[in-house]
């Protein structure tokens, strides 16, 4: 492995630790519940998009059906808790495992498909899931499930009176999703995935197990997204099929990664940090009228970013850009440099 890459990875890890530490202190200064809510959502969508990015960004298998795994995570936790009294922590784990298994079961036939046929298959499968939950009476059907709030408790992972525990859990989730991506980037899987994405035939001929590497990416990605879904159920106390499994969810999960930089380590989180606050703020300032102004702003933003920066916003923040800025600064202060020589 070349040293520049190792250097970059070490730097990424340091930057991430510093950012996480800073993020952890933010609630000490920001007490406003509305702002805290936006921060929780930003971290959650960042984590979801980071997980989506593993299958769709790194491995190149564009899924627009990840709402399925999100919904399974949310439903597993909510159903186990309300029907059998199983603690959400086990529901979270269970939902993740079930999602990973389903992702592999679905991947088995789907990974033979290419391009748009694959994308539409993922949409259609999630839509079948949505319709089944819609008609599944035991799981609340279209009415959904309400999770009874019985006071603050880490055991039951519910805090009706405070956003802080949710904030820290979402932060941990985002860090885990980031770290898993970071770790996988330099593993055997990471190299396989990039090879599969660039040219599956060439990868196969060089001994990459194309099929199994897609299956691995799908399992990891689905597991993490389901944990996010499970968190979401605990966060909002109420889920119904549309609100956790709708097609919109799949697109919203992809969006931060696409805008930030698909298939990059930092893209999803950057996209979420920019996109989610803008979405939430426009929704509460101009969306209250119910007249769609928030949609116009939001859609316009998506068009603008995808046309102006097709490679994602991440390029604006690279170390190369930083070096370029330094060069620029040096241009404006040439005298001192000569003196130093």
């Amino acid at each position, binding site marked *: 492995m070349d040293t520049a890459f190792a250097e970059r990875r070490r730097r990424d890890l340091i930057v991430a630790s510093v950012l996480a530490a800073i993020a952890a202190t933010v609630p000490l200064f920001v007490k406003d519940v509305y702002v805290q809510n936006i921060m929780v959502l930003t971290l959650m969508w960042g984590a979801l998009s980071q997980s989506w990015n593993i299958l769709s960004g790194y491995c190149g298998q564009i899924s627009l059906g990840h709402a399925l795994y999100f919904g399974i995570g949310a439903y597993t936790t909510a159903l186990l808790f309300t029907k059998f009294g199983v603690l959400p922590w086990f529901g979270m784990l269970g939902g993740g495992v079930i999602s990973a298994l389903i992702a592999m079961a679905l991947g088995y036939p789907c990974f033979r498909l290419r391009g748009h*046929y694959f994308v539409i298959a993922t949409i259609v499968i999630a839509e*079948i899931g949505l319709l089944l939950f819609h*008609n599944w009476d035991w799981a609340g059907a279209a009415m959904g499930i309400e999770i009874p709030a019985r006071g603050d408790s880490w055991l039951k992972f519910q805090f009706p009176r405070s956003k802080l525990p949710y904030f820290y859990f979402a932060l941990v989730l985002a860090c885990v999703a980031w770290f898993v991506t970071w770790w996988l980037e330099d593993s055997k899987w990471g190299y396989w995935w990039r090879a599969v994405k660039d040219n599956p035939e060439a990868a196969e001929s060089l001994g990459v197990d194309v099929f199994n590497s897609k299956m691995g990416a799908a399992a990891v990605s689905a597991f993490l997204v389901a944990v996010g879904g499970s968190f979401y159920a605990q966060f909002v106390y109420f889920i119904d099929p549309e609100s956790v499994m709708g*097609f919109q969810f799949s697109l919203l999960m992809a969006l931060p990664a696409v805008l930030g930089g698909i298939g990059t380590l930092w893209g999803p989180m950057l996209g979420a940090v920019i996109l989610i606050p803008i979405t939430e703020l426009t929704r509460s300032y101009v969306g209250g009228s119910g007249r769609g*102004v928030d*949609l116009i702003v939001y*859609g316009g933003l*998506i*068009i603008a970013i995808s046309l102006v920066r*097709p490679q994602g916003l991440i390029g604006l923040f690279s170390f190369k850009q930083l070096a370029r800025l330094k060069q620029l600064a040096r241009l404006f202060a040439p005298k001192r440099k000569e003196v130093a020589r």
Partner: protein
Amino acid sequence: MTAEAIIQSLASGLLMGLLYGLIAVGLALIFGLMDVVNFAHGEFLMIAMYATFFLFMFFAIDPLLSAPLVAAALFVFGAVVYLLIVRFAVRAKANAGMVQIFSTFGLAIVMRGLAQYFFTPDYRSVTHSWLGGKTVSVAGIFLPVPQLVGALIAIAAFGALYLFINRTDFGRALEATREDAGAVALVGIDKNKVFALGWGLGAALVGLSGAVMAIFFYIYPDVGASFALIAYVTVALGGFGSVFGAFAGGIVVGLVEATTALILPPSLKAVGIYAVYLLVVFIRPRGLFGSM
């Protein structure tokens, strides 16, 4: 369940299927031409339905008469969308696929927002049109007239499209551009002009179907979403790149939907469509008539 009931629902499934084909063919045309899936296709349908509705409300023009007007308006709209947005999206050097998906998806959201803003989220319907609510009995089978006329319009549109692609200069330019856009530029055809006209034509076809749909379907800002998904499945089922595939795909989708509704509760009828799509592509990964 009597044989009559089965024939009855298959017949209405066939009519609906032809309409699905008409909705989908614009998508198939654009995809075949330049490999772009228009994620705002449902919203094109939505504004066509609104256009029909407002022409009816303000000028009392029956949807049957306004259909050509709506198609013409959508033609202009489609060409403008290509020139303002899609032209730049296909030029993207990185992530071309995602950029196309999300620039047209962004357009869909903007269009929905604009519809909510200007038309309000209220449900509208064209009441007392010439065909609305009428049925006709053919050999003991009752067929709703709007769907029947819609299906006839769909067949006529497919026929016209076939002649258009195969018999006119523009149609040949369209085919040639789809075969090899680079070579077409060499013989002096402006690729952008062909693409813009292709988008116009695709949008005009969805405009036509919107005018027919407006006769018997509620009109609201989100109406496009459900039909868009069926249109994607229709196109993929028929095979991307094949205009004839969209026609056949539409018929299959309509029949499958009707059959599923006989067996499963009505709210699950879309499951049949999706299941058949998966079954077809698992066996034949390029759809029924698609080329690889």
